[in-house]
Structures are given as C-alpha cells and as structure tokens.
C-alpha cells in the first residue's frame, strides 16, 4: 500500500474569488476524473481525500499536559499537503507512473510513501 501525498502552493488559489476558483476547478475536473478511473483500475478500493486550504488549518500540541492550538499549517513552507491517495499497488514503479498522472504533479510535488500495515 502506498500513500501519494500531494504538495502544492495554494496561496494564489485561496485568494481567488469563489466563482473564479470554481471555474478553474471545473476546467481541471475532467483530468481528475480520468485519473480516478485509472486509479480505480489499478485498485478498485483506492481512497482519496482532498483537504481544505491553509486558512482552515490548525495545529495542536500537548506539552506538560497543556493543550496549545495555533492557526495555520504545521510547516512554514509555501507548499502544503492538499490531498492524498491511498492505493494498493504492486511496486514503486507503478506508484511513480500514477503519481506523474496526478494533475497537481505539474505545478506541485507528489511524495510517495509506503504505508505500514
């Protein structure tokens, strides 16, 4: 089982007006659906989740029994995780092939991590 973690810079994206974001989303949607078909073919039980942008991210830590909550994503990098796929694949080569098919690989990065069973 592999996790394909999608990293991208959403800073320009989150500042767009809602209708413009919806329009750009609709443009890319057919490509994502083609990807979903391909992932389903490789593993009918694959799972995918898209995460909200950085504005709604919160970080929780507990130190000496005290809970501390801060706003924003954990990493201070421009790019953050925007979503992930979990998929059962025969080998890393197949994971690389499918990772390259993710539309976000063209502007962001896909990190492939084996999942511990």
């Amino acid at each position, binding site marked *: 089982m592999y996790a394909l973690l999608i990293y991208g810079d959403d800073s320009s994206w989150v500042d767009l007006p809602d209708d413009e974001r919806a329009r750009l989303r609709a443009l890319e949607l057919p490509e994502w659906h083609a990807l979903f078909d391909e992932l389903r073919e490789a593993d009918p039980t694959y799972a995918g989740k898209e995460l909200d942008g950085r504005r709604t991210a919160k970080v929780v830590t507990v130190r000496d029994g005290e809970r501390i909550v801060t706003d924003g994503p954990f990493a201070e990098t421009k790019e953050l*995780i925007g979503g992930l796929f979990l998929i059962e694949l025969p080998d890393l080569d197949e994971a690389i092939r499918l990772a390259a098919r993710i539309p976000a690989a063209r502007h962001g990065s896909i990190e492939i991590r084996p999942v511990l069973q």
Partner: protein
Amino acid sequence: MQYMALIYADEDGWGELSDEERASWYARYRAFSEDARTAGVMVGGSELDATRDATTVRVRDGETLVTDGPYAEVKEALGGYYLFECASIEDALGWAARIPGAEHGSIEVRPVYSDPTDPEV
C-alpha cells in the same frame, strides 16, 4: 464533517527508542484508536514508512522527474494520520490532542474538502 489529523514528529527520536519503548507507544496508539472507534469518530488512519523510503515525483514541461527522499527535508516529518468524523473543528481538535504524538510532535488538523457539485471529489 471529516477532519484529517496529520501527525508530525521527529523520526530520529523514534529510531532511538528501545523496542520496549516503541511497543509502549504502539499500545497507546492502539488504545487511542479503539477509543475513537468506540466513540464513532474514527473513519481511518495509517502509519507511513520513514521518509528515507520516500520518493518524490514532479512533472515539468511534460517530463517526469523522480527523486529519492521526501518532498522537503524537515526535522519533524509526517509519520501518519487519522481521519475523524466530527461535528465541529473543536471536536476534531479535542480528539487530535489525545493522539499520543501530540505530546512530543505536532498534529495538523485539516477539514476534508468536499465539492457539493461533484460527490466524487
């Protein structure tokens, strides 16, 4: 509403633990997962292999670039996640604070996006 709790922690520290210490952390994670499952909050979760086994893929100008290693070299790396079903982000933060890794690492809580016009996304 679903929330993802991403667990960031120091991988080197984990590697330095004794087998007994690691077993004790795993037992705490199992107990936490069981509590979350019993409460109907737990939707899923996975532990990821160490970042030294990561591979990063980018496509630029139509060419696939593959590099060994994680997307970014960081001291505290993503080591796993939970997926929770909670009524509010406050509830999700409450559950996230109970993840054992919150005591030494950091838990990033992110609402899962769902497109109202497209149930598959």
